[in-house]
């Protein structure tokens, strides 16, 4: 089952309604604070990496030019002009990357920076509408006070500022902006609040195989009685599904032993745990789905209808 990746963070993610004009609730999951932070750190690392990389290439190019000039016995020193160009590159490059990296990517069709893509997030309007450029500008300009303001206070402190208390107060004050997402239900950062956006889960899943069509699930050797199938509900079925899709043998052995004990099943000689679980899953799902069609959803094993 290589095409199945369980999204652990998603299971615990907070869900929000997003009802399409067709009237279907998409049940969007919000990006968690941890995901948001890691996406940002990835982006920051890439931006700094680009700046450093280009600088190294530029300096190497200057040296190469200089040695080429001396090889041709031309008296040329990169000096002032070369350094000033580097300075201009840093100024403009840092300005563009600091303000434009996030904006540029979020304006694209996936509405996500590289960091967000890696983590599986994207930006969306809270009202489900069209993501506009002005909203993206607003959410990204506010990063000034969320990231750079606390950073400034930190650097001040590092520079051994005598007014330690003032710096500490400043840090606390600016920390409110940085930690804003932790204090509201929708995990909005200041920029999201100002722009009317939020950051949602956008994982790329592939269509996983249909478990009930596996050969072992159809084997005639396994026949279960209704009593044996009435032991569990939907929750247990989906835990079993997860175990089967992960294909972890140790976990399957534990679960199979557990189920056999619970339903009073004696394993025949040569019966594999995987085959047994496949067959039990197929039978249990058939039974629960048949009930579902009659309007009875049995949530879990404690749900006696």
């Amino acid at each position, binding site marked *: 089952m290589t095409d199945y990746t369980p999204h652990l963070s998603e299971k615990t993610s907070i869900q929000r309604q997003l009802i399409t004009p067709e009237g279907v609730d998409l049940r969007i999951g919000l990006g968690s604070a941890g995901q948001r932070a890691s996406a940002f750190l990835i982006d920051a690392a890439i931006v700094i990496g680009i700046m450093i990389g280009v600088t190294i290439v530029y300096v190497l190019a200057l040296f190469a030019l200089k040695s080429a000039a001396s090889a041709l016995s031309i008296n040329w020193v990169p000096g002032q002009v070369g350094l000033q160009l580097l300075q201009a590159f840093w100024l403009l490059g840092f300005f563009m990357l600091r303000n434009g990296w996030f904006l540029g990517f979020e304006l694209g069709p996936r509405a996500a920076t590289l960091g967000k893509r890696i983590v599986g997030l994207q930006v969306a309007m809270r009202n489900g509408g069209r993501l506009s450029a002005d909203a993206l500008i607003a959410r990204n300009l506010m990063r*000034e006070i969320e990231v750079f303001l606390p950073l400034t206070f930190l650097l001040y402190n590092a520079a051994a500022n005598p007014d330690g208390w003032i710096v500490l107060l400043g840090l606390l004050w600016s920390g409110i902006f940085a930690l804003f997402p932790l204090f509201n239900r929708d995990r909005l950062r200041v920029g999201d609040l100002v722009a009317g956006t939020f950051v949602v889960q956008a994982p790329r899943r592939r269509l*996983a195989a249909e478990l009930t069509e596996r050969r072992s699930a159809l084997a005639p050797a396994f026949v279960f009685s209704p009593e044996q199938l009435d032991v569990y509900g939907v929750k247990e079925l989906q835990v079993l599904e997860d175990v089967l899709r992960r294909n972890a043998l140790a976990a399957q052995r534990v679960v199979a032993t557990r189920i056999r004990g619970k339903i009073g099943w004696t394993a025949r000689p040569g019966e594999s745990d995987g085959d047994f679980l496949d067959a039990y899953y197929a039978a249990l*799902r058939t039974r629960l789905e048949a009930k579902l069609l009659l309007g009875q959803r049995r949530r879990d094993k404690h749900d006696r209808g």
Partner: protein
Amino acid sequence: MTVQSFQPELKSARFRREREDDWRRLEALLKRLETQPVSKLSDEDLIALPVLYRATLSALSVARETTLDKALLDYLEGLCTRAYFVVYGARPRLSRRVSRFFAQDWPGAARALWRETALASLLFTLGAGIAFWLFGRDPDWFYAFIPAQMAQGRDPSATTDALRKVLYDGGGAQHDILAIFATFLFTHNAQIAIFAFALGFAFGAPTALLMISNGCALGAIFALYAVHGLGFQLGGWLAIHGVTEIFATCLAGAAGFHIGWTLAFPGEKTRPEAMAAAGRRAATLMAGVVLMLAVAGVLEGIGRQLITNDLARYGVALISAGVWGYYFYVPRQRRDAKAAR
């Protein structure tokens, strides 16, 4: 009685098998749309997209009521969400958005925020006035408003000749390439303007302080030159780019005040709704502010070094004031009426 496990196949499995080709097709279509522009898509695909989206969405509704396959439900939810953003999130062409920005959105935002702009300008002028007045009482106040590294020798101890010299071969001396000087000025000013805007979120108070302190710096340097009888010359030196730069600074302050004010007094809408509307309007204005500061950077970094005649400098200042004033505040009824329709 026993339940056969190899019974006729599961209804939900058949449901899936009958539709899974459509889902995969939608998935492939979405993938292509993420890497290439819509215009590259064939007509057939363009027509298929909304059809496949609606089919998948209805499959999701049905699946939620009939299948217990968690992986399938997750897949359909993710696919529908992606398709939803593509189908309902399509944006107009870039060229149209850009022309709309210059024709309506930017001047519209500036007009809508005229009160905030007036407040920012007032605070700036107030700062300048205070600094000028304080300098008159005691020139040492100068050091309070302008840090030594920014003054670069232009302080109360400087001679008239030294001060005059700065005006006519000023900052260019340390920068051989004027374009680099302009770049430096632009990025520096733009970052401060963005900062002033973002600080507006703290109910506008830090933005107000920034406006006043910027005004103070101007007032102090003006007072210094006025004492040496160089007020008129300094005026030209500052105004050539200052009209654009100070105007942009005040607009950035106005954008900050707008979000700070809305956060405190959201009015009739809910606070998040009011904030979203205010933030987007302010952001439009900020995009314009950055453009204005790029113009100011060129005027200061290049224009001022090349134009050393006082009257010509005032001329450029006057023209830029006229252009910005006309662009922002003179209503264009024909175009506005057309847009309203």
